[in-house]
């Protein structure tokens, strides 16, 4: 995925833990961890809104586009 979430850096700057952010945003720690590690496929506007509100930042601060070879790996949908 060419889109990367810079949650680590922003959390470090705000001196906030992932658990605290999860509590404030209302997203489970497991889901926030999926987001942080770049395993998420999509992010809802409502989640992005809550993250930006709690982290006091813009969506552009959270999301970064890193050009590279397109991810063509097959989905894990029963073809394995």
């Amino acid at each position: 995925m060419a889109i990367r979430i810079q949650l680590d850096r922003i959390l470090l700057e705000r001196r906030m833990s992932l658990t605290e952010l999860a509590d404030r945003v209302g997203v489970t720690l497991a889901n926030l961890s999926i987001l942080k590690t770049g395993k998420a496929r999509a992010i809802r506007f409502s989640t992005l809104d809550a993250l930006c509100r709690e982290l006091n930042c813009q969506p552009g601060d959270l999301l970064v586009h890193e050009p590279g070879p397109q991810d063509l790996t097959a989905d894990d949908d029963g073809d394995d």
Partner: protein
Amino acid sequence: MRLPTLDNLKGRLPANGVAARVRFPRFRAPWRTLGPGSVASLLKVALDVAYLLLMLITAVLLIAFVAAIFIPVANYNVTVTDHDGGLQQPLTRPLLLFGLGALSAWVGGFLLILRNLRLIFRTLTAGDPFRPENVRRLRAIGLTLATVTAGVWVAQGMVAARLVPGVMDPQGFGELLTPIFSVLVVFVLAEVFREGARLRRESELTI
């Protein structure tokens, strides 16, 4: 009775000329179809019972198949027919083994289908049908159904042509139409489940 003219109808139609869509009452089953205590769980119990019975029948047939290798089969006759009358054939050991083997394979095929169906219905009872495993199970059901149907067709053809020519009607391709349709429906269903599993995964990874 007067038929409505175009002028009369114009007054009843909306201004843009498009007729209002007729709304039919939506049918909702008065019982739950998925989850614990639903129709799916009831069917799962029925499939469990059928699976056990079929396992017993398969075991008995396999024992009979092994026994047929050793038991004496002289002085027995078998009537081969698809209607009244038919043809008396001496029961030879190869014929007995062919019959029992074909029957065991047929029942065994349905045992495999039932096994996969049980596992699918287990996920339906849990209320989570779009699992990736169900795609594989449905494909396995389709393949087994195709194999069993083709096997029966070939075996019947062999009996009709070689064993008792003239007694049974020759096999036609028309008899394969319904099974082919069923197999194709199962494969299409497998693709539907694959798409469902993909959407489920997408949904899981949408934060």
